[in-house]
C-alpha cells in the first residue's frame, strides 16, 4: 500500500498520463482523484466510458451548438471542454467503442476539439487518467482496443491490488473507515476473523458497505458477528467444499437473504449450477434487482460491484434496462 501511495505522490506531481488497473471496487476513482489533488489544476472531470451512448459520444465529449442536430435546442459544452486545462478521468476506458477511440485519439493528438455543428476548432488539452478492470493489453491483442491509443494512455500504469491480496490491511481499513465516518464502534474478534477469512469480491467498496451495515444494525458500540451477512456463505462453502463461483455472485446469495428465499430461486450451495457461470451470474443479478426493487444503485451495492459494472452486465445480457425494470415490477 505504501508503494501505491508513493506512486500516487510521484505521478501526482507531474502531468503524465496514468492508467489505473484493478478490479471493480478497488478504488480507481479515489486514486484518480488523489492524483489530481496532488497538483490540482483546472477541473477533475470523470467520464464514464461504459455508459456513453455511441450516437451521442461526440456531443457529450465535444459539446454541440444550438441546432446542430434534431433535439439540440440549446448549445451545450462537452465534458472535454470542461476538462480543458484540468484532468479528464476516463473510467472503464476499455468499454470505449472503437469509433470513440479514434475520436479520443485525435483529440489527444491534435489537442483541439470541434463542437458538433461548429466550423471552428478550439484548443483542448487536459491531463489524462484512465481506468480499466479489463486487461487492456489483451484487448489490444484481440483488436478491440487501438494500440496507438493504448500507448498514449499507458505512459505510467498503476496496479490497484484486490483486497483479498492484502488482507492484512483490513483491520486498518475498517478502523479508518469508522473514524472517518465518526463511528465509535469496535470490531469483535470474531467479526475481524470472519472478515480476514472472506475473499471480498467487491473489494474496498464491499468492505465499506459491509461496515456501514454492521454499524447500522448494531445496538451498542460493537460490530456483531450475527449481523455479518456473508458468514453463512463462508461456512456453507467450507462444509460443502465446492468450487467457488465467480466470487461476487455468492455475496449476493446471502445478502439477498430470506427475502428472496420464498421466490423460486434455490439458495445456498445449490444456487450455482456447475459449469454455468453465465446463468449463475444472470440469476444473481436478477435476484439483486428483485431485492433492490429494480433500483440499479442499490442492486449494485448488494452485489458489491459498481453501478456501471452492473449496467454493463445488464447490457451484455442484451436487455434494455427500462424494460427490465418494468419486468420486475410486473413480476
Amino acid at each position, binding site marked *: 500500500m505504501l508503494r501505491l501511495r508513493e*506512486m500516487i505522490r*510521484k*505521478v501526482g*506531481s*507531474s*502531468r*503524465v498520463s496514468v492508467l489505473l488497473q484493478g478490479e471493480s471496487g478497488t478504488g480507481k476513482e479515489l486514486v484518480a482523484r488523489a492524483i489530481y489533488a496532488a497538483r490540482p489544476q483546472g477541473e477533475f472531470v470523470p467520464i464514464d466510458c461504459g455508459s456513453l451512448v455511441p450516437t451521442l459520444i461526440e456531443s457529450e465529449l465535444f459539446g454541440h451548438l444550438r441546432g446542430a442536430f434534431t433535439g439540440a435546442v440549446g448549445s451545450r459544452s462537452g465534458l472535454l471542454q470542461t476538462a480543458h486545462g484540468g484532468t479528464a478521468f476516463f473510467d472503464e476506458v476499455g468499454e470505449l467503442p472503437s469509433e470513440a477511440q479514434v475520436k479520443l485519439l485525435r483529440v489527444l*493528438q*491534435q*489537442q483541439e476539439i470541434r463542437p458538433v455543428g461548429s466550423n471552428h476548432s478550439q484548443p483542448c*488539452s487536459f491531463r489524462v487518467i484512465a481506468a480499466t478492470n479489463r486487461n487492456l493489453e489483451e484487448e489490444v491483442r484481440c483488436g478491440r482496443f487501438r494500440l*496507438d491509443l493504448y*500507448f498514449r494512455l499507458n*505512459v*505510467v*500504469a498503476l496496479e490497484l491490488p484486490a483486497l483479498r491480496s492484502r488482507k492484512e490491511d483490513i483491520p486498518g481499513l475498517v478502523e479508518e473507515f469508522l473514524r472517518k465516518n465518526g463511528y465509535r464502534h469496535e470490531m469483535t474478534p470474531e467479526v475481524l476473523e470472519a472478515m480476514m477469512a472472506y475473499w471480498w469480491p467487491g473489494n474496498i467498496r464491499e468492505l465499506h458497505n459491509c461496515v456501514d451495515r454492521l454499524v447500522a444494525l448494531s445496538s451498542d458500540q460493537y460490530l456483531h458477528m450475527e449481523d455479518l451477512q456473508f458468514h453463512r456463505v463462508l461456512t456453507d462453502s467450507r462444509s460443502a467444499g465446492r468450487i467457488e463461483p465467480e466470487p461476487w455472485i455468492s455475496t449476493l446469495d446471502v445478502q439477498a437473504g430470506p427475502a428472496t428465499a420464498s421466490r423460486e430461486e434455490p439458495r445456498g450451495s445449490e444456487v450455482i449450477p456447475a459449469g454455468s457461470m453465465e446463468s449463475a451470474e444472470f440469476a444473481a443479478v436478477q435476484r439483486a434487482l428483485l431485492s433492490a426493487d429494480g433500483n440499479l444503485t442499490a442492486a449494485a451495492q448488494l452485489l458489491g460491484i459498481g453501478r456501471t459494472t452492473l449496467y454493463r452486465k445488464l447490457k451484455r445480457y442484451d436487455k434494455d434496462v427500462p424494460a427490465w425494470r418494468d419486468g420486475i415490477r410486473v413480476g
Partner: protein
Amino acid sequence: MANPIDRNLVNRRPPTVLLVEDDARVRKWIHEELEKLGYNLLEAGDGADALVIAELHRGPIDIVVTDVVMPRVDGPELVKALVALRPDVKVLYISGYPEALLRKSTGPSTDDNYLQKPFDMNTLIARITELLDSEDSE
C-alpha cells in the same frame, strides 16, 4: 520467389522514444512524425515529468530526445538522473542552445548527440536511427 527475410527487421520491436520538450507545437510535430514511422512515443513537457516516466513506465525506453532549456528540471539534469535509472538509454539533445555551452554542463560526450534547432525531420530521424543502431557497437 520471395525475398529472404531480414531477421533483424523481423525481430525488432518498435523503438520507444521519450520526447521531452516544453514547446507543445514542437512536441506534437515530432510525436506525429515518429509515430508514423511506427515508433512508440512517450512525451513530457519538462525534465521532471520525464523522470516520473523514466521511473514508473513499465516498458523499455530506447532513446530520450530532449530539449536543453526547460522549466523545473532541464535537459542535462534530466540526462544525469535518467542514466542512473536506465543506464542503456540513448540521448539526443535538440536545442537552439549553443552546443559549446551545452558541452560545458554535460562534459565532452555530447558531440554525437546534439542536434541544433531548427532542424528538418529527416535529419532528426537519421540521428535517432544512428544512435539506436550504435547499440551493439558500444
